[in-house]
C-alpha cells in the first residue's frame, strides 16, 4: 500500500471507531454465543460418537493401516498423486515441495497482496488463489476419506502361477499391511506407495529387495523387524510379480 492509502485507511478506521460501539457487550455477546455452540457441538459429538480403544501397539507385527487424522489426509493423498513416478519424485514433490510452498505462501501472503482494496470480488488474484487452494485441499481430504483402506480380511490377490515361496510371500504381503499403501492387480490402496503389479519387471535380485525392505525410502516404514526367511519369501514374491506371477 502506498503512503497515501495508509493514511486514508487510518483515517477511515479512526472514523469507524469513533462511530463504533463498546466491545462489551456488543462483541462479547456474539463471541460467547458462537463459542458456546462450538463447545456444545463437541460435547454432543463426544457423547454420540464415542472415542474407541483400538488395538495395542505391536511394533513386531506390521499388520497395520497407517491412516493419519483426517486433517492430514490431503498430505497423504498428495503422496498418492506422485506414487507411480520413480522412487524419489513422491518424496520431493509431496513431502517437500508442495507443503513448503503452501507454508511459505501462507506466511508471506500479506506481503504479496498489499493493495488497498479489501472487497473480495475486486481482488481476483486473491479470490483465485483461495478457490484453488481450498478446492484442492477439500478434494484431497474427500478422496482420503472415501478410498478403501486396503484389503478386507480373507481377501486374496488375483494371481496365478505362485510357487511355495511365493505363496508364503503373498501371505506375508497381506498380513503385514503392504496392501494399505500398494496395489496389485486392482487389489489394495492406490497409494501412497506405487503399484506393484509389475514389480518383477525391475529385475531386482532377492538381496537387493531385502535391502530395500529393511531400509526403504520414506515414507515407507522399515520391515527390518521381520525374520530373514520371511524377508526372503517376500522378496521372491515381489521379484516375480508381473513376470512369473501374473
Amino acid at each position: 500500500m502506498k503512503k497515501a492509502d495508509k493514511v486514508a485507511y487510518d483515517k477511515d478506521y479512526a472514523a469507524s471507531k469513533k462511530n463504533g460501539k463498546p466491545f462489551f457487550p456488543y462483541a462479547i455477546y456474539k463471541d460467547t454465543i458462537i463459542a458456546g455452540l462450538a463447545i456444545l457441538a463437541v460435547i454432543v459429538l463426544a457423547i454420540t460418537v464415542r472415542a474407541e480403544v483400538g488395538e495395542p501397539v505391536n511394533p513386531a507385527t506390521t499388520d497395520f493401516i497407517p491412516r493419519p487424522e483426517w486433517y492430514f489426509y490431503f498430505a497423504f493423498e498428495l503422496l498418492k498423486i506422485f506414487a507411480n513416478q520413480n522412487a524419489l519424485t513422491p518424496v520431493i514433490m509431496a513431502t517437500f515441495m508442495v507443503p513448503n510452498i503452501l507454508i511459505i505462501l501462507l506466511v508471506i501472503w500479506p506481503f504479496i497482496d498489499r493493495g488497498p482494496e479489501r472487497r473480495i470480488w475486486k481482488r481476483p488474484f486473491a479470490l483465485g488463489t483461495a478457490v484453488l487452494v481450498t478446492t484442492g485441499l477439500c478434494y484431497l481430504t474427500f478422496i482420503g476419506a472415501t478410498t478403501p483402506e486396503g484389503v478386507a480380511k480373507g481377501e486374496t490377490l488375483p494371481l496365478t502361477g505362485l510357487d511355495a515361496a511365493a505363496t508364503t510371500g503373498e501371505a506375508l504381503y497381506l498380513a503385514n499391511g503392504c496392501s494399505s499403501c500398494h496395489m496389485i492387480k486392482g487389489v489394495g490402496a492406490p497409494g501412497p506407495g506405487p503399484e506393484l503389479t509389475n514389480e518383477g519387471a525391475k529385475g531386482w535380485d532377492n538381496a537387493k529387495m531385502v535391502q530395500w525392505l529393511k531400509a526403504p525410502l520414506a515414507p515407507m516404514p522399515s520391515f527390518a523387524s521381520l525374520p530373514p526367511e520371511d524377508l526372503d519369501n517376500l522378496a521372491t514374491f515381489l521379484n516375480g510379480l508381473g513376470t512369473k506371477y501374473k
Partner: protein
Amino acid sequence: MTTKDIGPKNPVEQGVAQAADYVDERSGVKNSGRWLMFRNIPAGTSWFQTLGFTAMALFGMQAITGIILAMYYKPDPNTAFGSIAHITNEVTWGWMVRGMHKWGASAMIVIVFLHMGRVFIWGAYKYPRELTWVTGAMLLMMTMMMGLTGYLLVWDQKAYWATVVAVNIFASAPILGPYIGDILRAGPEFGPDTLSRFYSIHMLLIPGGIATFIGLHLYFIIRLGISEPPWAKRALRVQRDEEDARRKAARNRDAGLKGSVSFPPAVVTDGQEVSR
C-alpha cells in the same frame, strides 16, 4: 436484615473492597480493564468475527480436558495403551473427557481454518494487520502439530504406524529432515523414549508456543483494533468521496493542460479509457 444504607458496610464487603483497592493502586488493573472492555469497536462488526474467540475458547477447553487426561495417562510404551483403556472404560466420566479432547481437536482445526478464511476473504490481513496474520499462521501450524503429536499418545496400531509414516516423511526432507526426524523420534528409530518425547512436545512445548502466540496475536488485535467488514457502507462512502476527489483533480489538471497546450487530454489518448 441487610443494613444497606446505614452505617459501615459489613466487614467482608469492606475487606474485599480494600483488597481490590490495594491491587488497583499497584497494578492499575481497574482502568486498563475498563479500557479493554469498553473500548470502541466498529459498529458493523459481524458474526464472522466470532471465530477467533471460538478458536481460543476451544483451546481453553483442550487445555482443561488435557490436564484431566494427564492425571491418568502414562507416557510409557508398556502402560500407555492400558491407561487409555482405563480412562475410557473405568474412570468416572473418563470416556467423556477423552471424547471431548478428541473431538475438540477436530473442532479447533475446523474453526481455525474458518477463521483464517474469514480473515482472507475480508482482506483483514492488509495494512496495518500483516503481523497479526503472521502470528496467526504460526498458530495454525502449531495447532496442526498438536494433532500430529497427540495422535501417537493413544498408542494403538493405527496411530503408531501412521506416526511412523509421518515422521518418515519429515525425516525425508532435504538438509534439515534427518535432524528433525531424530529429534522427533529421540533417536534414529522409534523407541521407548519416542512416546515420552511426543508427550512432552504435545503437552508442554506446543501448548506453551500456542499460548505465547495467542498472546502476541491478541496484542496486535487489541492495539490495532478489529477490522471493519469491507462492505461497510461508511467505508464505501469514504472511498467514493476520495475517488470523486481524485477524478475531479484529474479533470482540473486536464482542463489546465487544455488551456495552455492544444493536446487532447491524457485520458482520451489512453485506448483503455476510450473503449470504456
